[in-house]
């Protein structure tokens, strides 16, 4: 799909990117003002990856997400009010206030969950792919994870299972250059993480993760391959996180200049200059994103707090 030339697609991609950006800016602000608690991992600067990837998916497809998962959840079509309610620890939140940011999930849109465990979602994605294979049908799974996750044993084992069983899984690495403070250059002895795909006999490709079109093309190709039964692929999307890793981050491991350089490669601003929308249309999309987030905050704020009374009942399914 041509995301820049096709105005419908461009509008959708841009609206989703802006929605993620505005949602996370709002979260950042609520947190700074002490109105939100816990910890938050913001994906500001990385919006092109979930948006480009999820536009390659259809109803019934699955994703697995990460600790930095707001963007995946939104790009997959989750309701902003239920997301915001979750972060505000409300009973109407996606997880009834039990999960928070690190476990946010909208199962209805195939999101099997954010995950507080680095690489925790990778074998789970392989398993969802296995279920699809056993059930039959054309569904696929996209598994999102960061560069840091690629050194976990869970990643290795999950990718290998998908590879040897030709499972319909697309592994999407959001390489934002750091796993917390650890630079990719120190954690790996390969130039591109996509080089690791060969170890599992699957295709690997590195793309500009700040360009939703590039991500979309690569993931779209991998999704088509998976749907056809040819097995998994690995897409490395190179991007950058503007904010600290989490609230405890003092940015001691990288320079202001580096952050500034990447801000100049803002995926949203670049897309706006490239896409076929007029200045008026762009303004409309921006307003729409802002309004959607405001509305979500309003609804979420009005909702009741998560109730502690039924804690133990909630542990087991029945």
């Amino acid at each position, binding site marked *: 799909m041509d995301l820049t030339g096709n105005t419908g697609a461009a509008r959708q991609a841009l609206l989703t990117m802006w929605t993620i950006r505005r949602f996370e800016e709002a979260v950042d602000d609520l947190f700074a003002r002490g109105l939100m608690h816990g910890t938050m991992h913001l994906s500001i600067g990385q919006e092109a990856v979930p948006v480009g990837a999820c536009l390659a998916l259809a109803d019934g497809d*699955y994703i*697995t997400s990460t600790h930095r998962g707001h963007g995946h959840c939104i790009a997959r079509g989750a309701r902003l009010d239920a997301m915001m309610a979750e972060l505000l620890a409300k009973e109407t*939140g*996606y*997880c*009834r*206030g*039990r*999960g928070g940011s690190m*476990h946010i*999930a909208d*199962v209805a849109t195939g999101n*099997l*969950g954010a*995950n*507080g*465990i680095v690489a*925790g979602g*990778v*074998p*789970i*994605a*392989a*398993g*969802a*792919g*296995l*279920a*699809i294979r*056993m*059930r039959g049908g054309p569904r696929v799974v996209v598994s999102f994870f960061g560069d840091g996750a690629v050194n976990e*044993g*869970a990643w*290795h*084992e*999950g990718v*290998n*299972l998908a590879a*040897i069983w030709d499972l319909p899984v697309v592994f999407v690495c959001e390489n934002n250059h750091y796993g917390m403070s650890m630079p990719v250059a120190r954690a790996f002895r390969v130039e591109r993480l996509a080089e690791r795909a060969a170890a599992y006999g699957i295709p690997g490709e590195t793309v500009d993760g700040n360009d939703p079109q590039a991500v979309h093309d690569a993931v779209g190709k991998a999704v088509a391959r998976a749907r056809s039964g040819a097995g998994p692929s690995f897409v490395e999307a190179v991007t950058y996180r503007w904010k600290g890793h989490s609230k405890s981050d003092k940015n001691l491991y990288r320079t202001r200049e580096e952050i500034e350089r990447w801000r100049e490669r803002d995926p949203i601003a670049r897309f706006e200059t490239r896409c076929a929308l007029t200045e008026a249309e762009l303004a409309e999309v921006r307003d729409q994103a802002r309004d959607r987030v405001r509305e979500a905050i309003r609804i979420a704020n009005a909702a009741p707090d998560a109730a502690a009374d039924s804690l133990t009942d*909630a*542990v*087991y*399914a*029945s």
Partner: protein
Amino acid sequence: MTAVLPEQTGVAERTLTYAEAVREALAQAMAADDRVFVLGEDVGAYGGAFGVTGDLVHRFGEERVRDTPISELGIVGAAVGAALAGMRPIVEIQFSDFTAQAMDQIANQAAKIHFMLGGAASVPMVLRAPGGSGTGAAAQHSQSLEAWFAHVPGLKVVMPATPADAKGLLLAAIDDPNPVVVLEHKLLYKQSGPVPEAAARVPLGEAAVRRAGADLTIVATGVMVSRSLEAADRLAAQGIEASVLDPRTLVPLDGQAIVDSVRATGRALLVQEAPKTGGFMAEIAATIAESRAFGFLRAPIGRLCGLDVPIPYAPQLERAAVPQVDDIVREASELVRRW
């Protein structure tokens, strides 16, 4: 509390080994429900490290009796994902010691997803693994790790001690919409007993009174159940009548049955194979000590457990590391005679 003794069930039975009983449960569950499948290392052509899956691959095919690479974390994670996506996976881990490899997917994922997602998803899967010593397999292949799993909210934990329970509890575990860890015992695999032909469930959370006696209550799990029964016979010859209670499932625990029995006998001897410190019998001791049975206790609560040592290789050392029938007889009679 239910005592499922063969004569009470009134259904057609034959004698099967514990391993055969497990296999029959797997076969019946797979035949009844397309979503059920088995995965694990060497469960296919090899038939499982302990022969449990046997010929199942020939009956259900390689897709549903799925050999995996040696990747316990990946395998359990794949089961979690498959369960989330509508399947009913049954994972075999060759030795329960290797659940250490998969602990993240067991404890941080499978156990917690239902709760963390506010009930929006569930993880109906079973993890089967043999525990226990007695085969000369040494420290990394002989552990009894039930206490680890019982301490993780969100998991259910099952320890069948007879062939009938091996089948019935496993079928109940497969039905359950939650992750269930079924800890089998290597020494029991070849033991025989009556097993119903039908796919009869043994409900999770109901202890079995294996023997009734007025002088003390022996609570035992796994291979310690049959050792305790043997000890009880010898104690009877000495004039001591022991109740032998098998919790069968640790989570949910039938605390009621334990407390009732100890209230009646006034004495408790808790027998496990796992090392004493932090073992599940501590939980049972604490359950008794905080319960209505407290006022009825005539003696300190006795624990007879594995030593706090890794399981050694040498047969005589291995035997010394875990309770034997003699030890149970000695501890029980001392408990009764001294108090």
